């Protein structure tokens, strides 16, 4: 038998530890359990406010965003059969950024209140996704990459136009900071977007896990085994875009998580793309939450943005992966 390591229980344990740590770490020391208890029972106390209204949303958003990025990265790498693919490739990130920029400059969706940026980002991501799906046709790997690149480029150009005509210089700064990626000051209502997106996108992707496994042997074999390759591929792209769109619209760009997490976990899941999905979601959640704890532990002053930290940590790992990959072909 192949050496089997069941990695999911370890990841779940780590997830709980990191979540607890995330509730515990901060400028003020409060008891996590009694803070949670006070918050849950509606008692108004300092610890209830600190835990329930500041740290709990931040922790949950970090976990959800990380899970969305990890899962979408694993799904997309499986679908496109390429370990160096990033979830932002489907064009949803740039679409979300464009949607958010329109809020910063034109004050759209003011009805949505604090959720305006998220809602606009989500709409931007979905529009980008629909264009991309229309363009990519069958969901063939080369077409998905080309269509994603095309949509990203168009959305990026439109974003540049918006920035160019920015009426308010502060809005520009705000947008740039938002794009750098962070989970602080997001509010519990962001979860109204993230949670359904994670559920729906996750279900769509998990429903296609047999396709992801079979595609490893090529489209012809997958189709000959009775799988709807074109339809399933489009569903995976759809699920990915929902996950990426929701997480970018809540937290901005958190780079490298979707690229690295599946790659690091692959040896523990017997390289099977279908068995990689859940562990990647868990590990993505752990990684983003842990990175956010690190951000909070850094010295006070201008806070280092979470997306900047993941890129700083992720880029060297990515270079290492590229070097390792290039050696395989020497």
């Amino acid at each position, binding site marked *: 038998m192949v050496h089997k390591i069941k990695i999911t229980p370890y990841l779940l344990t780590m997830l709980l530890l990191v979540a607890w740590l995330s509730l515990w770490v901060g400028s003020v020391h409060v008891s996590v359990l009694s803070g949670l208890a006070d918050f849950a029972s509606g008692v108004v106390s300092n610890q209830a406010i600190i835990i329930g209204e500041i740290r709990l949303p931040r922790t949950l958003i970090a976990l959800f965003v990380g899970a969305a990025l990890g899962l979408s990265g694993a799904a997309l790498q499986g679908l496109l059969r390429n370990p160096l693919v990033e979830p932002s490739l489907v064009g949803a990130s740039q679409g979300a950024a464009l949607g958010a920029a329109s809020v910063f400059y034109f004050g759209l969706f003011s009805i949505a209140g604090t959720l305006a940026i998220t809602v606009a980002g989500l709409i931007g991501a979905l529009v980008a996704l629909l264009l991309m799906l229309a363009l990519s046709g069958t969901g063939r790997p080369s077409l998905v990459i080309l269509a994603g690149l095309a949509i990203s480029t168009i959305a990026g150009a439109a974003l540049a136009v918006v920035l160019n005509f920015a009426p308010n210089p502060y809005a520009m700064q705000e947008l740039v900071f938002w794009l750098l990626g962070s989970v602080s000051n997001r509010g519990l209502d962001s979860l109204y977007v993230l949670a359904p997106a994670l559920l729906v996108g996750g279900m769509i992707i998990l429903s296609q896990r047999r396709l992801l496994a079979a595609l490893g042997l090529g489209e012809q*074999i997958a189709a000959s*085994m009775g799988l709807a390759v074109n339809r399933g591929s489009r569903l995976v792209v759809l699920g990915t875009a929902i996950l990426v769109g929701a997480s970018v619209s809540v937290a901005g760009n958190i780079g490298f998580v979707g690229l690295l997490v599946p790659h690091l976990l692959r040896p523990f899941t017997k390289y099977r793309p279908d068995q990689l999905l859940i562990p990647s979601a868990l590990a993505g959640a752990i990684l983003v939450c842990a990175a956010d704890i690190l951000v909070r532990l850094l010295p006070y002053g201008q806070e280092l943005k979470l997306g900047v930290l993941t890129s700083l940590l992720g880029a060297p790992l990515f270079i290492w992966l590229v070097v390792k990959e290039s050696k395989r072909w020497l």
Partner: protein
Amino acid sequence: MALISTHALTVDTRLKDVSMSLQRGDVLGLIGPNGAGKSTLLKTLAGLEKYSGEIKLEENLIESYSSSERSRIIGLQPQLVNSTWPISVEEVVALGRTPWHDRDEAAIQQAITLAGITEFTERTIDHLSGGERARVWLARVLAGQPQALLVDEPVANLDIHYQLSVMNVLKEYAANNNGVIVALHDLSLAARYCNKLCLLKNGECVAQGTAAEVLTESLLNSVYEVDVDVDLNRQPPVVLPK
């Protein structure tokens, strides 16, 4: 009753009016030059190509089966296969259970035994030689326990030892009340292992029947445009270009 039969099967310009049938117990060899339509015919039977004409599974039209029912009856091993991920041999074979939505260990082990790959099930696919891989791909499709096994060029690039071992697996599988259609370039192997042959040229079936009926010097000369030496009385039979 034929396990698979086609009538006037046409696939754009690649197949024209092909009518053939596969009985249980048959090893049907598809032969013909490159581009004759051998792979297209196999892919069409496995549901991968749009076609006009008729394909029947026993007495029913193939359209009356869902794609998942069809994939449980017809198994296809395409010509060019590769695994993106370095998964273990056992996992590759287990993927063959996809049409059944299960992981039937008995079927997987049976396929592994039949393909003769028991000694390296724990190795990963990227660490195998071409000959070993060819038998793993075969075990993958056997794990689905198809009644009709379609195999495209299973012995291309294999040494003579593996050529015989793969062809013997196919023969043994057909003998078990299944049908096998195999596309081959090696006409001597076709004469030796196939009880029926179908000779294709430019998408048309120019001859079908036993080796003695199809592998004649004049027919092969007109199809391949080279002179061919045929000696079917030798054991094993020999068909070689002059």
